[in-house]
């Protein structure tokens, strides 16, 4: 089937089998390997991308279901080489060790902070509960999300 998916502002068209998972389309057809496949069983959230601004596990969606939709992956976060607050937060607060979960963590956080710009620590932990980190780095990940929230609030207050 022919699909056209807008990923990070660019259209990718291909003839794919219906069984092709969105995660594989992103990695292998669009060659955007920042989206990771971890557990491959809808648990770990490493494959999280934004589909029309909503975080979804791209290993649990078929590429044909994303036909005509707009997707943001980790490669679409920084603009003209300038990091967005969540990326800056992970950098400043050492929010990663191996980095495998980081793209999913950041995309979940971007959508979460849009919905809840001033979250408590408990709310942050709740929001990222579908993204697993195996380096046990949750303390710094939570710090990174807090950093991004503060940074975004500052920017808004000018």
């Amino acid at each position, binding site marked *: 089937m022919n699909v056209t998916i807008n990923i990070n502002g660019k259209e990718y068209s291909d003839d794919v089998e219906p069984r092709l998972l969105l995660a594989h389309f992103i990695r292998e057809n669009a060659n955007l390997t920042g989206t990771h496949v971890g557990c491959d069983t809808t648990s770990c959230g490493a494959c999280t991308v934004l589909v029309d601004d909503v975080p979804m596990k791209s290993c649990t969606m078929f590429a044909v279901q994303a036909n005509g939709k707009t997707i943001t992956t980790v490669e679409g976060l920084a603009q003209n080489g300038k990091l967005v607050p969540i990326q800056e937060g992970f950098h400043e607060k050492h929010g990663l060790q191996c980095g495998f979960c980081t793209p999913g963590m950041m995309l979940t956080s971007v959508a979460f902070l849009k919905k809840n710009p001033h979250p408590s620590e408990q709310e942050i932990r709740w929001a990222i509960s*579908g993204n697993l980190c195996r380096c046990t780095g949750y303390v710094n990940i939570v710090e990174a999300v807090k950093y991004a929230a503060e940074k975004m609030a500052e920017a808004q207050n000018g």
Partner: protein
Amino acid sequence: MIPAQFQYAAPASIPDALALLQSNPDAKILSGGQSLIPLMKFRLAQPAMIVDLNNIGGLDYLRDEGGWLKIGALTRESQLEDSALVREKYPLLYDTTLSVADPIVRNRATLAGNLAHADPANDHPATMLAYRAQVVATGAKGNRTIPIDDFFQGLFATSLASDEILTEVQIPAPKPRSGGAYMKMERKVGDFATAGVAVQLTLDAAGKVEYIGIGMTNVGLQALRAKRSEDALLGELPTAHFIERAGLFAQQDCDPNADLRGSVEYKRNLVRVLTMRALEKAVARAKGNG
């Protein structure tokens, strides 16, 4: 993991979807896909055809209408989670939704799919038993309404015909002095329940139980109604004595299997404790101390 090959159709209307189901008896309906797609990846499910409902407009509603909360086939768990109506008037449904999988899965998963999939480990079936909800099945001949007690027919089985679509879930609006709660034991976020108990009840003006529904998750081949526990409380003041009796009946009447989550004895005891806790919380909520 790559699923087996299948034909894919994403019709734009219910009649088109029904026509596809009629001409393809082996087709499976896809809504949120958060259970079906993993099963296909494990090749535990190998449907010849997928009929994807996601391109049908107008199925993602949540309506308070004529004494019922009506929920469409494509209403996502996250919509229930974000609804003030659900949070305030349907605390049992709210509790249950929050305990389904994790926040990202809930952005895609649907309540209707959770029921139609009929996994005894799913959380909503027990909750629908507690509410005495009903579902609307749409087929070529029109709609029929199925009471939830007639819906689940064992492991992954329902009374839906292969050419019917579960198009709406209907939950009766609770009367004043109602409360509900869902208690689930899970090893970690996103895990299936070791056991879960759903309670919905209404107290009369004198504080006696005038309505009660109790459902149990993952302690049988399908979600189970704790009938003797309900009977123990109906017409009584919900005192510690009767709550304890209800817990003991639930412990005896559930039918769990031993697995990695625990032994039969452990799960039965867990059901007793969860039943009592859910009852206590439901009573507190009915009295406005939720």
